[in-house]
């Protein structure tokens, strides 16, 4: 079991990553908080030894995605309707960040992860395949389709 100091360090380092993944998967603020606490509790309780910071970050991403999926599958969640739409999104900025974000979040669930992991976290298709336990070709396909949809939604041909 990790100590309080390690827990605080992990929160400082990975809070934004966890938050972004929560926004990709969930639409409710309280759910984000639950996931936040569960992920870092698992981190504290885990006896996994991380070889590097990259390894540790991949572990946090994997656990966060799993936690989000578990929450979405839960009995209570599947029978309730969230009151709010897209909470916690940043206010409109001049660079059109909110527009892009809304376009990403409007993608089907299976495309959002790969877009985020590829374009934001910088993982290659092979790495995303390992992280999500999916075939590399499937990742390529998902990326291609996601790009097509984004291009359609946002216009332009920058998504290559």
């Amino acid at each position, binding site marked *: *079991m990790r*100590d*309080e100091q390690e*827990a*605080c360090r992990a*929160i*400082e380092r990975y*809070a*934004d990553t*966890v*938050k*972004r993944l929560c*926004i990709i998967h969930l639409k409710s603020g309280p759910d*984000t*908080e639950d996931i*936040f*606490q569960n992920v*870092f*509790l698992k981190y*504290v309780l885990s006896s996994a030894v991380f070889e590097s910071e990259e390894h540790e970050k991949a572990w946090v991403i994997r656990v966060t995605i799993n936690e989000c999926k578990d929450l979405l599958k839960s009995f209570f969640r599947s029978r309730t309707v969230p009151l709010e739409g897209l909470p*916690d*999104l*940043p206010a409109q*900025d001049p*660079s*059109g*960040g*909110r527009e*892009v*974000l809304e376009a*990403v979040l409007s993608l089907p669930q299976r495309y959002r992860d790969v*877009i*985020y992991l590829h*374009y*934001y976290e910088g993982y290659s298709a092979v790495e995303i395949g390992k992280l999500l336990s999916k075939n590399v070709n499937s990742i390529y396909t998902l990326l291609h389709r996601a790009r097509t949809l984004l291009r359609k939604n*946002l216009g*332009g041909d*920058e*998504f290559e």
Partner: protein
Amino acid sequence: MNNRIKDAFDSIHAEEALKQRAKEFLSERIQRTNRRRSPVPVKLTAACACLVLLLAGGYSFFAPVSAISVDVNPSVEFGINLFDRVVSVVGYNEDGMALIDSLDLKYQDYPSALEKLMASDRVSYYLENDGLVSITVLGPTEEKSEKMLADLFVRGYGSASNVVCHSGVRDDVEAAHKAGFSFGKYRAFLELHALDSTVTEEEARGMTMRQIRDRMDACSSGLSRRENAGEGPGRHGKFPAVLPAAGRSPCLVPDILPSGRTAAT
């Protein structure tokens, strides 16, 4: 455009309040878990305490605190624990050893063990042939001795003409065992020795309780030692009823009982 996605996600940050709540939650969980895990010294102390209790319990069960000596010719001593259970049975002569070998008396409450012993073929043989049974009790305190003695009377042992009950003397126990006597028989030997100082331990060891009692009676009534012992109206001649048939050791019960009992009557 790739940068637009990066910029869009870059604008998302976990709020400080969210991080703070997560830190507080984890801090509380970590402290609770640490509290639940008792430190090693506490566990060690608890284990030691359990061990001590276990040993103390075992010791108090197996340690004899009281004793009962039953002497007829078989000389047997029960060690009795705090809970009035027989925890040791020792035979102090050949007859006594044969008797305890034939009975399973250990871990029974002492009244049951005594009853079983008295009902045994060997003791019955002596009782039916005018033998004298001496039951001597020794408790950890005088009160306990008296209580045990009273219990024997309640159970009718004291009212039988050929059963005598006494309280033992704690100081004599070591000397008795050193001399190869049960403390009950040693008590009788000391009484006899007080009346007739020529009686040796060796001689007393070979005598039945009836023989010792009759010898004491004879000494008390002024008869000379020569008249009581040996060839005169001596030991065997004077106490024929208690002894087995002539030529047989006076100390031993016939080998086959109870059929041997009918032969002796």
